[in-house]
């Protein structure tokens, strides 16, 4: 259940937290994707 946002601080705290988590996950994901994409380059 999403709680209400009342202040700019709450907004920034929530969005920045989620965004930074997504960025960390994305860095791992895109590294994995690169390995998948280039996995058969040597063959």
């Amino acid at each position, binding site marked *: 259940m999403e709680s209400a*946002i009342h202040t700019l601080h709450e907004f920034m705290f929530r969005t920045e937290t989620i*965004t930074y988590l997504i*960025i960390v996950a*994305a860095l791992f994901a895109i590294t994995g994707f690169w390995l998948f994409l280039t*996995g058969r380059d040597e063959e």
Partner: protein
Amino acid sequence: MSEDTATIGKSYFTPFNIIAGLIVIMGLVLTVIRFTGGLAATTNLSDYNPWGLWIGFDLLVGVALAAGGYVTSAAVYLFGMKKYHSAVRPAILTAFLGYALVVLALHYDVGRPWRLPYPFIVQQGTTSLLFEVGACVALYLMVLFIEFTPVPLEWLGFKHARNLVVKLTLLLTVFGVVLSTLHQSSLGALFLIAPSKLHPLWYSPYLPVYFFVSSIIAGLSMVIFESTLSFRFFKHKMDESHSAEKDTIALGFGKAASFVLAGYFIIKVIGISAGNQWHFLTTNYGLWYLVELLGFVALPCFFYAVGVRDKNVTLIKWTAFWTVIGVVINRFNVSMIAFNWHLPSSERYFPHWMEIGISVFIVTVGLIAFKFIVTRMPILYEHPEYKDAH
């Protein structure tokens, strides 16, 4: 000689010529109506919707799909990927024609063509993004024209002039990349002025970045798509190296497109997160946004990757076509479908048939010019006098 003889005996009434001829006649009639009757006679534009199909398709899509020029020349001349060299001339030609037609199409939307140089010589308006877009497009069109000139110069036999222009290649490529980076992103930035009109899922402070990154995807995909069509319709004009390199180009550009699509997908998700727009995803517009994001970004990203891994060129070609459609949908969404989303349906914009007719006419003019040049000039083959001159 034998080819000339064959041409003499050939009828000009081919299906392509007949259809293209009819479209050109229709386009010329609509042009007269547009320039004598004004926008009201030919468009459904209004104060709410001042930009319609001629901006959304002819300009935004035209510029994005012409990005193959700077993407390919940067890959070959700046990053030294010489194995893609045979893609440069078709890409430059497509870009040159694309930008020339963008300028032509802009006349229909803006009107009063004699005022085209006004931003440069009468009133600059240097604080306007439109000035920056106008300046970049004008300069880049000139750059593309000069980049293209070795082709007609080889065809006409002007060896010295051709060699002089070829020496400018690196400089022109750098100019092309700089100008493209500027105006591709600025086209997205134009919509930053309308945060209340563009749907929050499409509106983002990162719009300029989205437009620039998606232009790279469009450019890479268009090169693959266009080389597929060229091989289908102009195979007889291709020399051995062009025919042999087309699969290498598809695999290499497919790989690049896949990786850029992955990055584009990530920054789009980050954009939703930074704006805290998640709750819109469950609305009707949200579903349409997911169709664009999953169907035309994530899906081609995956199919490109599978195609590259399996060396499945057919899959890559179809994915390129799908991706091109995705870029068209994205530009339509930003400029028309998700624009003025809060208005009642009676106030929403749908293009007049004459607007569609003019757009079809302009695309047809491009196809005719492309066919005329490719069948006569050294685009898909090396001129015999300049073989291995690169």
